């Protein structure tokens, strides 16, 4: 995969003839080819990232003064029930969306991997449709489907005698609604990632297992799942980092109080809280402190992932 990074190719010097032909010009053009990425990423990615830590130390009003206040923003954040509420909501929505999404993707990838499946391309394409649908459009449709008075779901629930559920106004209901949207959007993409990994398992392994009498469940449990371990860990990490950044769904579902996702902040996520503080209250310093907190969480998850994957390698 990384042939040019391997010590073997580094040790072998290029034939002298190439060296003569590929001279200074090649080096200069090489730097010119990679420069756009480094310039753009430096200015719009890395610099703002570092700058977040700086702004977080100020009482920073975008149209007023910037006063250095040290770690006051962080002290305030740790004592702010709105922050902890948003953190709790984020974890709850993350769990409600990640677990079903990954389980569903595992099962679907396993059945899509069947050698004799018909219409395979149709199914593979269908599960990717939610991924190309925008989050905003998704939110509009799902809010309508989950509506208390006019929603299809409540109508169906009513048929079996369940009282209408006001999903948006209740804590669990709104979390469930957001988690449904996230799951819907991502399970197909995750399925294809798993399928990609499953396709590198030789088909003869599955066939041999079938001949030896392994049923569908045993083939799933003992061949597919173990071979997917690394990519499962990868998707848990990416879905966690994505889960920390959920913003559009909560902003769009509670039309009455979008920035808090409801009157009692029942579905405000951490990123929405960051936005509310930064661009609703114009507290750039406090908003940046929330950004730093989110970054610390991302690093913690990445570290946990590293520990987990080294342990799995050791198994």
């Amino acid at each position, binding site marked *: 995969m990384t042939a040019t990074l391997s010590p073997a190719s580094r040790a072998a010097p290029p034939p002298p003839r*190439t060296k003569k032909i590929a001279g200074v010009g090649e080096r200069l053009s090489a730097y010119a080819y990679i420069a756009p*990425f480094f310039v753009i990423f430096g200015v719009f990615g890395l610099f*703002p990232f570092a700058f977040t830590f700086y*702004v977080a130390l100020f009482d920073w009003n975008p149209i007023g003064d910037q006063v250095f206040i040290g770690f006051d923003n962080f002290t305030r954040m740790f004592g702010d029930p709105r922050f902890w509420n948003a953190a709790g909501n984020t974890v709850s929505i993350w769990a409600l969306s990640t677990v079903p999404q990954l389980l569903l993707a595992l099962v679907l990838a396993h059945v899509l991997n069947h050698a004799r499946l018909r219409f395979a391309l149709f199914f593979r394409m269908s599960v990717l449709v939610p991924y190309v649908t925008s989050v905003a459009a998704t939110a509009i449709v799902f809010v309508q489907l989950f509506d208390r008075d006019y929603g299809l779901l409540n109508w169906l629930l009513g048929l079996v005698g369940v009282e209408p559920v006001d999903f948006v106004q209740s804590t669990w209901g709104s979390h469930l609604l957001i988690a449904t949207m996230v799951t819907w959007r991502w399970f197909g993409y995750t399925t294809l990632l798993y399928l990609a990994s499953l396709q590198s398992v030789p088909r003869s392994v599955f066939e041999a297992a*079938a001949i030896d009498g392994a049923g569908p469940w045993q083939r799933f449990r003992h061949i597919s799942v173990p071979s997917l371990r690394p990519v499962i860990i990868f998707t848990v990490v990416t879905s966690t980092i994505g889960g920390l950044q959920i913003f559009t769904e909560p902003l769009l579902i509670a039309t009455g109080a979008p920035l808090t996702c409801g009157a009692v902040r029942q579905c405000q996520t951490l990123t929405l809280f960051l936005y509310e503080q930064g661009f609703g209250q114009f507290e750039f310093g406090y908003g940046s402190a929330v950004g730093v907190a989110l970054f610390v969480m991302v690093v913690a998850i990445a570290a946990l992932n590293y520990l987990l994957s080294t342990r799995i390698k050791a198994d």
Partner: protein
Amino acid sequence: MTTTTAPRRRRLDRVRWWTYLLLGVATVACLFPLYWMFIVATTDTATATRMPPEVVPGGNFLHLAGLVVDTVPFVQSLLNSLVVATAIGIGQAVLCALAGFAFAKLRFPGRNTLFLVVVLTMTVPTQLSVIPQYLIMSELGWVDTLQALIVPGLASAFGIFWMRQHISATISDELVQAARIDGASTGQVFWRIAFPIVRPAAFVLGLFGFVTAWNDFLWPFIVLKSPERYTAQIAIKALQNSYDVDLGLAMSGSFLATVPLVVLFVLAGRRMVAGILEGAFKG
């Protein structure tokens, strides 16, 4: 022995009925919300709220589409989205192919270190620094402009990684050397030899860049101020704010903003699926 195993193996290997049931349910779950979007976008409020619901499209689509255009400059929003997404898609494909080519085929001091830096930047969660990003944009005077969306979207570390892998795998060093001996400059080697060969991979990368840019919400929501600059996603949000006009308004906007992507997906979705299937996790 072969006579007994062969039929048995075929029986064990067949696709069970529940496999199709499962995939059928998943397909319906994936497509139904889009179908529902279409239903509500074509019916009037009274019909859309009637239970049991209508399952066939109504004839109200043009009326609602007219309302959408009256409420926000939606045609302009669709054009803005098209400009931003196309610029990002093409820009990413070209810039990443250039950088991937440099990392795969050119020799220069610091190559391995710089490539490592590119890979590491993938782990920086840039979305969390929207506040300083906004401060930079206002320093540059780019707030409420489309280049505030396009320029940052051009840098894709994953894209460089992806193009480098494809160029390493498909273009031999001998081919590059042969072209050089024939007197081709580095630029000519890239444009005449390398890029045509990896164009399919660059196309898939551009496609994903286009879709991501078209659907992006948080950053355009922060940086765009005036309705004439809105992308389609922000226009949907604006339509939602005027909910009292018509229940189906935001839905019609969502539908109009989704149709271009559905068309694109029907035309090129096969390539996107293939792109994910041959993605970074297979090797």
